[in-house]
Structure formats: structure tokens, C-alpha cells
């Protein structure tokens, strides 16, 4: 059970990072690439949810982890930050692909979402306070 949950949790994280990579590509590349946002949006959502759901499930499954452990609380806060900014990117690029807006989401949204995911990875590996 633990191995399957860990696999799905990590796979979700890889999917999330891949979609962030696509958002950076939309920002740096030509307008044509933004058409990919129609698949990036649902996949980003799927990756985000998988990270959270299987992460919390793991916390319940593993003896010694508690949901209120400092590193898990930090992870949930960072997940919310990446969720808020990642959602802004997803919606922004989808609106751009639909022709509703012509302007890309702000660079700061890309930076904050990426930084939150990088900090999440650091938190998952070092597990401060565990």
C-alpha cells in the first residue's frame, strides 16, 4: 500500500512540475504554443490533486507521521501557494488560448508557483522537524 501511495504521490509531483515547465514554455515561446494550455490546465489540476490527496493518505498510512507535523503543515501551505498561483497561470493561458485575452500571465506568478514547488520538494526531502 505504502509503495503504491508513494508512487502516485511522486507521479503527481512530476506531472505538476511538467505542467509548470509548459507554463514557462508558454511564457518564453511563441503564441502558438499556448494552444497546449487546453491539455495543460486539466493535467496541472490532476497533478496538484494527486500530490495533495496521496500525500495526506501517506501521512495517515505511515506510523510516525501526523498531519500536524511541522513539515506536513508547511507542505500544505506551500501546496496552497502553488495552487493559487498555478491556477492563475492555468486560467490565464486558457483564456489566452480561447482568444479572450492577449496578454500572458505575469512573470511573478510563474516565479512564485515555481518557487513554491521547489520549496515543497526541499520540504519533502529534508522533512524539517520530523
Amino acid at each position, binding site marked *: *500500500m*505504502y*509503495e*503504491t501511495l*508513494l*508512487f502516485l504521490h*511522486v*507521479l503527481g*509531483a*512530476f506531472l505538476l*512540475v*511538467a*505542467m*509548470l*515547465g*509548459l507554463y*514557462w*514554455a508558454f511564457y518564453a*515561446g*511563441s503564441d*502558438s*504554443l499556448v*494552444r*497546449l494550455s487546453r*491539455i495543460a490546465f486539466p493535467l496541472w489540476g490532476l497533478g496538484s490533486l494527486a500530490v495533495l490527496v496521496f500525500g495526506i493518505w501517506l501521512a495517515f*498510512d*505511515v*506510523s*510516525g*507521521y501526523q498531519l500536524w507535523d511541522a513539515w506536513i503543515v508547511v507542505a500544505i501551505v506551500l501546496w496552497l501557494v502553488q495552487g493559487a498561483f498555478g491556477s492563475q497561470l492555468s486560467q490565464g493561458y486558457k483564456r489566452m488560448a480561447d482568444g479572450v485575452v492577449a496578454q500572458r500571465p505575469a512573470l511573478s506568478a510563474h516565479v512564485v508557483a515555481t518557487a513554491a514547488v*521547489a520549496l515543497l*520538494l*526541499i520540504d519533502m*526531502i*529534508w522533512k524539517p522537524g520530523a
Partner: protein
Amino acid sequence: MTYLLIRPDSWNLPLFVHVAGAMVVTAALVVTVGSLALAWRATGEERAAITRFGFRTLLYAGIPAYLVMRIGAEWILSREHIPTDNEPGWVGVGYLTADTGGILILISTVLAGVGVRKLRGGGGGGLAKAATVLASLVVVLYVIAIWAMTTKPS
């Protein structure tokens, strides 16, 4: 209920380098596959621009991240002191997927690069398509690697 296994602190940095490199190389491959696949249906300058973007993503992000992932893998393996004469199956799967993936990334980069050059003369579409297929195959290989690294089959 699974019991908690504490990883020595000295493993954290090599593990971070390995996982971060793996995440970036996978992201670079997904961006490459997405852009090269879009180029299949594009025409003229748009097709050349998207193909060039896919090629540059592999060259400037995919290959460096692959090297970081691979160096991180050797680093963490050296910390784990796994006997070379009795390697567990997941280490073998890791080597196989990483090394096969590395070769395919190099071939994809060359194919996409030559394809970009040939697109200027009107050809090269087939090469870019081949690069797309190979890069997609590497993504599949890396999903297998993620499965092996997390479930650690004997």
C-alpha cells in the same frame, strides 16, 4: 500501517539533486513533445519556430538536467552502499531507463536539430516527427523509472 523509516541526513542533498534533475528533465521532455507535436500540424515559419523551440528545450534544459539527474543518481547510490555484486532490481531498472533514456534524448536532440535546419529548405518534418516519438518514449521510460524508484521491487 507502514512504519516510519528514517533516512540518514547525509542522503538528503544527493537525493534532492537526483529528484530535482529528474523532474526538470521530465518537464523538458514534456515541453519538447508538446511543441514538436504542435509543429506537425503547423506550416511555414510557425512550424519552424515551434520545432526550433522544442529542439532548444532539449538542448538547453533536457540534456543539462539529465546530467544533473545522472550525477545525483551516482551520488545517492554511493551513499547507500549497495553492494555491486548483489544489486536490487530497482537499481537495475534505474540504470536501464536512465541510460536508454539518455541515448534517446541525444538522438532526439540531433534529429530535432537537423530537422530545424532542413525545415528552412522545406524538408525535415520527418526528422522532427521521429524526435517527437523518441522523446515520448523517454517520458514513458521515466514513468517506469519513477515506479521502480518509489516501489523498489527487489
